């Protein structure tokens, strides 16, 4: 797989996207609480 294909596959994989979104939400919450 090329780098582009791998990147696209990762970014459309729920196993990666869900943890990434949860991380972003957690970081936003942390900044808001600080």
């Amino acid at each position, binding site marked *: 797989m090329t780098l582009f294909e791998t990147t696209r596959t990762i970014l459309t994989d*729920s196993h*990666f996207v869900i943890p990434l979104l*949860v991380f972003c939400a957690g*970081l936003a919450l942390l900044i*808001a609480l600080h």
Partner: protein
Amino acid sequence: MIAHREILQIYRETSEMSETTATGVRAAAHIGSRHGLGVVCGLAAGVWLGAAEAPTKLVNSGLSPFAISLCMVAGVFTARWTVPTMLKGSRYVFADLAAKKHLLITAILAGMLWAVANTLTVFAIRDVGLTIAFPLWNTNSLVGLMWGRLLFGELKGASAKNIAKVVLGALAIVAAAVMLGFSTFHGNGSGTVHAGRAVSGILAALGASLLWGTMYIPYRKAYISGMNPLSFVTAFTIGELGTMVALVLALDGGTKAAVFHSPEAKHMLFWLFLGGFVWVIGDLFQQFATKYLGIGRGIPLSNTNQIWGVAWGALVFGELAHADLAHKLLVVSGSVVMILGALAVSTAVATAREHSSTNDSLVRECTRYNLDYHSVFQAYAGTGTRGEEEKRGWWDYVIVAVAAGAFLYLGVNARVPSLAIDFRWLCVLSGVLFVTAAMGGWALWKATRFS
């Protein structure tokens, strides 16, 4: 090896299925033979993760929780290059990481989730106190159970009895952890709710639960892709350390943060590093439990750490010496509920149909990322062939010597605080740690050579 009787049973069950499903079941049947190993790893993880907090009790520094977390995570990172390096040389680990490059970012993300979740608990305690915050973030194993079912098909095709055992067992362990946690809370602010901040505190605790529970997605994904837990932990600790450094720089005073300048920190680092060392061994057992049992069974079992945390606090540090009857009853009843919960989860042995859905997850990963199914399956089942890269290089010994040297240097400069310690119980519980590690390590080596 699977016993002939089990194989016959599997073939009897698969004869009633479609050919595709049956192939999956036969392939995944080997995974089932790892149930006992997974249970041993899960329970060993509980023992070690519960003990990880003990050395940090010797730190009375006035350092911020961010700084303490950063030092402990630095200890975790350093400790990863001690004993674990000797289990599989760095050549093997880097070859494994290079073969599954797409998982690097996922493992780093898992470390980042851990660091943010851990920091959120600080805010939760500040705003609503431990009494409210602790039960909320302890539900993380239930979040993991949900992701395991939704994303990896765990418990899919399981018998109603097994589903009940896993779900009720996990609930019992969460309830017991809360009871045991309450037994150690005293009036010193543990139940303080700051007016106007209750909502933000509850959000922080729920956020920590969600982040920790979601962190198990990368764990499971790595193993159904054939990654070795030692490789995963390597990338995980980088994500953890990088995020903690960033959080201290952003939220705890930047480069002027006390942790970087306080002369006192040097004398306490050893205890935090020691906590990190114990944590990384516990985490490795947890990783192997997740690999061989899945999230739904592995995480609740390793969350029995609360019982060992209370044992260290009560027996070694005398934390329950002045506890009233209600607190002592909480300890006894919490321990009983936790043991029953662990018993329920550990006896829920997956059937052939459940193994089939595990195999479907493996096939999904192989198709999606163009991985070789047979090598992924062998790695997942812990039966992969041993290659040249497993041999340790001379640099591995240098890495271990440098990491051990760091511990030695900090140990020489450590200051032992004047804290009442029961040395008899310290020896007993340290003995339990070593026996558990020896048994778990031997079982893993014998069955999988730490694969």
